[in-house]
C-alpha cells in the first residue's frame, strides 16, 4: 500500500468512528434522560422502562458500530491497498 493511500485510510478510519459517534451520543443521552424522567415520575414502571431503554440504546449503538465496521475495513481489508 503506498503511503498516500495508507495515510488517507488511517485518517478516514478515525473520522468514520469519531463522526459516527456524535449522533448516537446525543441520541443516547436524550433517551437515557427521558428514561430517568420516566422512572422518577413512575417508579413502579422501571423494569419496563429499563428494558425498552437498553433495546433502544443498542439500536443507537449500532450506528457507531457501522462506522467502526467501515474503519476496520479501511485498516485491515482495504480494497484500495493494491
Amino acid at each position, binding site marked *: 500500500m503506498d503511503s498516500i493511500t495508507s495515510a488517507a485510510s488511517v485518517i478516514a478510519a478515525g473520522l468514520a468512528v469519531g463522526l459516527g459517534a456524535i449522533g448516537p451520543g446525543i441520541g443516547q443521552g436524550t433517551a437515557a434522560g427521558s428514561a430517568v424522567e420516566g422512572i422518577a415520575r413512575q417508579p413502579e414502571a422501571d423494569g419496563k422502562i429499563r428494558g425498552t431503554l437498553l433495546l433502544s440504546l443498542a439500536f443507537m449503538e449500532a450506528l457507531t458500530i457501522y462506522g467502526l465496521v467501515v474503519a*476496520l475495513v479501511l485498516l485491515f481489508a482495504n480494497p484500495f491497498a493494491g
Partner: protein
Amino acid sequence: MGSLPLVLPFAELEVGQHLYWQLGNLKIHGQVFLSSWVVIGALLAFLFVGTRKMERDPRGVQNLIEFLWDYIRNLAREQIGEKAYRDWLPFIGTLFLFIFVSNWGGALVPWKLIHLPNGELGAPTADINTTVALALLVSLAYFYAGLSRKGFRYFEYYVEPTPIMLPFKIIEDFTKPLSLSFRLFGNILADELVVAVLAFLVPVLVPLPAMFLGLFTSAIQALIFATLAGNYIGEAVHEEHH
C-alpha cells in the same frame, strides 16, 4: 488482506487473518467452523442433559431450560403475535441460543491458549460470514412466513398504506439483512478488539471492566437479533383488520 497485522507480545490481534481450509473451489475460514462446532456441541449437550429424566418439579438444568423456554416464548409471542408464534418459536429460540452462546463462548472460553497455524479462535459471530448467513436465514424465514400464511396477498404489504411506499419497502428488504448482520458482527468484533487493545496496553485488571461490558453487550445483541427476527416475521404474518 491483513495489511496491518498488529503482532503484539501479550495480545495478538489478528483481524483479517484466517485459518483457511480448501473445500473444492472454496476457501473457508476454518477457525469459525471449529468454534461454532464447539458452540453447537455445548448447546446440544446442555439440552440433552436437561431433557433426560424430566420431572414434574423441575430442578437443576431442567429448571434453567424451562426458564429459557419461557423467556423465548414470551419474546416470540410479543413480536410475532398470538396466532403464528408457535410455528416460529423453534427458529427464534435457535437463533437466540446460538448467538448468545457464541458471544459468551467467545468472551469466556480462553481460546487464546489454543494456537492455530494462522488466525485465532474466537466467537463465531465475530466473523462476517456467520452473521450474514444468520441474517439471510431471517430474510428467507420472513418471506416464507408471509407467503405461506397469506399467499400472494403477502405482496399487498408492499403497497400499504399507499403505493408510494413500494420503493422504500423493497429497499427495506435489502437493508434488513444488511443492518442485522453488520450490527451483530460489528458489536462482537468491537468487544474483542477493545479487550485485546486494553490487554495489550495494561495486561492486568484494567481489561476486566471492558470484558464485563462486553458480556453485557453480547447478551443484548443476542436479544436484539432474536427480537428483530421475530419482529420481521411478525410484520410478514400480520393481518390487517379493516
